């Protein structure tokens, strides 16, 4: 039996976190590390009550920073397969099984979730036809990797694969950084269809501009 750890970065998610954790537990994923990224609400308490392990950032550092903290923690705890999973309840825990199956059967290092493989996700119109195609182009420009989706937080890693990825982008540009490091380290990767249920819009144009700014600045930071 492989040791699977789920890493859930969370910021002010008291409304959704307990349901997200319970959904994962219901499918038998008992190793859940919720990284409370300096939330101002009851996120940590709700996640703990629901049955997750809690890591708490005293300051809000961003989703990328929270993921890296979670990754380092679960690697120390002996994780063999690591799943990145959003806290807002928009991902479907049932997709984890297929992703891990693909990771193992095809001997991969990383599996990325895609909203555009299969037809399970109802992506908002402007996001589907304007924001995400542009984000895919930008991702391809910065990483050289062609994927069917951009900035999807659902990922599965092997232990060895994850140990070669160090997230330095604290905010949302970590999505692009992970893909870039996957290519740089010659990790084997593939995509799997995931179903995303949109309860809120998520990142818009402004978030995209912020990501590009972070990626450009990154070139000059040693």
């Amino acid at each position, binding site marked *: 039996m492989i040791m699977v750890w789920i890493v859930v970065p969370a910021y002010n998610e008291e409304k959704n976190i307990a349901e997200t954790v319970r959904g994962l537990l219901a499918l038998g994923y008992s190793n859940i590390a919720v990284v409370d990224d300096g939330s101002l609400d009851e996120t940590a308490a709700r996640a703990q009550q629901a049955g997750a392990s809690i890591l708490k950032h005293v300051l809000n550092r961003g989703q990328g920073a929270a993921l890296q903290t979670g990754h380092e923690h679960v690697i120390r705890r002996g994780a063999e397969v690591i799943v990145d999973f959003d806290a807002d309840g928009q991902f479907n825990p049932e997709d984890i099984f297929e992703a891990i199956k693909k990771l193992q059967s095809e001997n991969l290092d990383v599996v990325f979730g895609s909203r555009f493989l299969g037809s399970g996700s109802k992506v908002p119109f402007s996001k589907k036809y304007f924001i995400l195609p542009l984000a895919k182009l930008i991702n391809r420009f910065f990483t050289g990797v062609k994927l069917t989706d951009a900035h999807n937080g659902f990922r599965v890693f092997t232990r060895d694969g994850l140990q070669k990825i160090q997230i330095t982008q604290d905010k949302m540009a970590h999505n692009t950084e992970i893909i870039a490091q996957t290519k740089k380290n010659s990790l084997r990767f593939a995509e799997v269809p995931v179903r995303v249920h949109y309860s809120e819009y998520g990142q818009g144009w402004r978030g995209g501009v912020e990501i590009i700014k972070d990626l450009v600045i990154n070139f*000059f930071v040693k």
Partner: protein
Amino acid sequence: MIFAQIILMLVFIFLLFKTILKLKRQELLFSEAVGWFLLWLFGLVLSFKPDTASYFAKLFGIGRGIDLAIYVALLVLFYLQFRLMIRIEKNSRDITRLTREKTLEDRKL
């Protein structure tokens, strides 16, 4: 020589000394110190002989000396702004590292 020129020259001489002092204290890299030294020297020359600006302006194909001074000032400001952004990003990453260390340490306890 008018009073304003004397004041400006004193300011630039002060800045030149300050740059040398910072280099001696190793608060500036040699390349940075040379950049700042040349900038303050240029300011000193301009405040001593304002006509020099017109000479340099013509060299660069710019009409008036004052225009050249504004362009140079803008370039310097943009560069400084860029340097500040890099510095802020580095500081931000340091804060993240500290936050992470504390989080992982707390988890061990």
